[in-house]
C-alpha cells in the first residue's frame, strides 16, 4: 500500500507546491497591467521608441534626398544603403527599445518598496515569487507591444514607403529578437530591483549589463559573442539575413532568463519588508 500511495500523492504535492509558488499571480498580473494602463509611461515609451526607430530607418532616404536636393550638399557621395532589409536593421540596431524597457521598468519594484505597497501586498496570501513573476509578465507583455511590435511595424511601414517592402519573415524575426531582448532586460532590471535599494542603482546595474558585451567584445574573440544572452537581437538579425547562426544564443538567452527568475525568487523571499 505504501509503495503505491507515494507515487500517487507526489504529483498532487508537486501541484500544491506549484500553486503555492504562483499564489496570486493572476490578480497581481491584472493589477500590474492596470497600473501600466493608468499611467503615461506606456504612451511615452510607444511614442519615443516608434519615432526613434522610424527616423533611424528613414535616415538613409533623408540623407540621399539632402545630397540630391540641397546645393550645399551637391556632389557629396552617400554610401548609405537603400536596401529595405538594411534599413530595417538600422531601425532596430539602435536598441532604443532596450533603453526604453530599462527606463520604463526600473521603478516597478523599487517604487512599490519605497511606497509601502509591496509590504501591503506581501502581507496577503500571495507568494513573493508570484509578485515578481506578475511584474515580469506584465512589463514584458506591455513592452513587447509598445517598445517592440508597434515600433517595428512603424519601422517596417517607413521602410516599405521609402525603400520598398521588406521581407515579412525578416520583419517577424527582427521583432522576435527585439522582444527577446526586451524580456531579458526587464528580467535584469527586476532582478536588480531585488538587490538595489534605489532606481539609479537599478539603472546602473541594467546599463552595465547592456554595455558589458561591447566592452568584452573588444577584448574577447568574436566567437565568444554568441554565448552572450544579450546577443539575441544580433542572432535574430543573422537568422533573418539567412546566416547560419546556430542555437547557442537562444539557449544562452533562455538560461539567463531562468537564472534571473530563480535568483529573483530567492531574493524576494529574503527581502525584509
Amino acid at each position, binding site marked *: 500500500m505504501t509503495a503505491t500511495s507515494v507515487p500517487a500523492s507526489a504529483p498532487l504535492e508537486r501541484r500544491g507546491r506549484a500553486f503555492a509558488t504562483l499564489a*496570486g499571480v493572476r490578480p497581481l498580473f491584472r493589477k500590474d497591467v*492596470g497600473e501600466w494602463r493608468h499611467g503615461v509611461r506606456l504612451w511615452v515609451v510607444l511614442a519615443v521608441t516608434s519615432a526613434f526607430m522610424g527616423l533611424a530607418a528613414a535616415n538613409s532616404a533623408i540623407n540621399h534626398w539632402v545630397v540630391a536636393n540641397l546645393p550645399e550638399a551637391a556632389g557629396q557621395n552617400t554610401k548609405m544603403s537603400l536596401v529595405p532589409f538594411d534599413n530595417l536593421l538600422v531601425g532596430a540596431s539602435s536598441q532604443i527599445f532596450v533603453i526604453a524597457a530599462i527606463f520604463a521598468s526600473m521603478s516597478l519594484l523599487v517604487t512599490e518598496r519605497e*511606497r*509601502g505597497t509591496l*509590504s501591503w501586498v506581501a502581507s*496577503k*496570501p*500571495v507568494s513573493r515569487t508570484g509578485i515578481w513573476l506578475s511584474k515580469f509578465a506584465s512589463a514584458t507583455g506591455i513592452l513587447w507591444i509598445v517598445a517592440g511590435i508597434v515600433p517595428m511595424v512603424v519601422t517596417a511601414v517607413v521602410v516599405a514607403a521609402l525603400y520598398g517592402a521588406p521581407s515579412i519573415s525578416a520583419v517577424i524575426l527582427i521583432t522576435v529578437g527585439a522582444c527577446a531582448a526586451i524580456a531579458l532586460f526587464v528580467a535584469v532590471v527586476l532582478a536588480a530591483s531585488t538587490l538595489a535599494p534605489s532606481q539609479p542603482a537599478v539603472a546602473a546595474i541594467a546599463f552595465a549589463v547592456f554595455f558589458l558585451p561591447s566592452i568584452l567584445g573588444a577584448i574577447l574573440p568574436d566567437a565568444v559573442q554568441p554565448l552572450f544572452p544579450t546577443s539575441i537581437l544580433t542572432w535574430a538579425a543573422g537568422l533573418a539575413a539567412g546566416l547560419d547562426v546556430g542555437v547557442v544564443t537562444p539557449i544562452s538567452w533562455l538560461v539567463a532568463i531562468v537564472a534571473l527568475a530563480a535568483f529573483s525568487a530567492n531574493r524576494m523571499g529574503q527581502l525584509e*519588508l
Partner: protein
Amino acid sequence: MADVAAISTTGLTKHYPGVAALTDLTLTVPAGSIFGFLGPNGAGKSTTIKLLAGLTRPTSGSASVAGIPVTAGADYRREVGYLAQEPRFYDWMTGRETLEFVASLYPAGRRSDPGAITDILGRVGLGDAAKRKAGTYSGGMRQRLGIAQALVGRPSVLLLDEPVSSLDPLGRHEVLELMEDLRGETTIFYSTHILDDVQRVSDQVAILDQGKLVRAEPTEQLLNSFTKDQLRVVISGATDGTEAELAALEHVESVVPAEQGGDLRGYVLRIQPNTARAVQSAVTHFAADRGLTVTENQQITLGLEDVFMRLVNTKEQAA
C-alpha cells in the same frame, strides 16, 4: 477558537546588525480579545507586528496565528489582516477597487463577494467615498480603508500597527469606535503609544520596552495590581497621632501622609491584598469613635499612563 490562542509567540527574537529590535518575546493573545501592544518609540512594536505579518523573518523563536506557524507562508497569511503604520494603496484604484483587488488575492472560500465588500465599506464609513480614488482620501479615510482591506479576507487576527497615532482627535475617535465595533468578531492585536486608547478599548495589554516584554496581562488586572492595595483617606480633625493609629488598624501595612490643608489631613494606606472593604469599614469606625469626619475613603485608581511609567521606570532602574 477558544481552545487555540489567536496569537502565540515563543522566544521571538529579531536582531539587526548592532540593534536588538526584539528579544525573546513569549506571548499568548487570547482569541477574540483586543490586545494593546504598548511601548515607547523604538520599543520593537512595529518589528513584532511585521514578524507576525510574515513580512520579516525572526532571528530566532517562533510565532503562530490560530495554530498555524508563520513559516506556513500564504496559508498563514490567510489568517492575518495587516494594517501598516502609514498605509499606502494604489492611488489609481477607488476604495471599492482596492477591496476588490484584495478579495481577489484570497482563495474562493475566503473571498469577500461584492455584497460583503459593500457591507465592509459601509461599516468603516466609506460607503459614500467608495467610488473615489484612494489617492484622494484623507489620513483618517486611508486608515479606515486600511482596516477595511484587512477585514476582506475574514482573518482570525487583525494586526494594526499604530492605527490611530497619525490621526486627529476625530479620526482617532472613528477608528477606535470601529475597533470597538469589531470586538468579539476577530482578535485585534494593535500597537500604540497612546495610553488612553489602550485603556479605553483593550481588554488585554502588553508593555514592551527596548525590545523586551515588561508585562502582559488583562488591562484591568494590570491596573488593579498597582492600585487595589492602596486606600486614600482624608480626615477632618486629624492630629499628629492619627497616622500611627491608622497604621495600627487591622490589615494596614503602612501609612504615608499625603497632603495637609486647614483642618484636613490626607493619608495613603498600603493594605493587605483583598482587604479594602474591611479597612474602609475600620477607618469609618475609627473616625466615628474619635469624633472625626472622614471626607474621603476609597481605593486609589491609577491610569495606564501611571502604570506604564512605573513599569518602564522600574525596568530602567533595574538595568
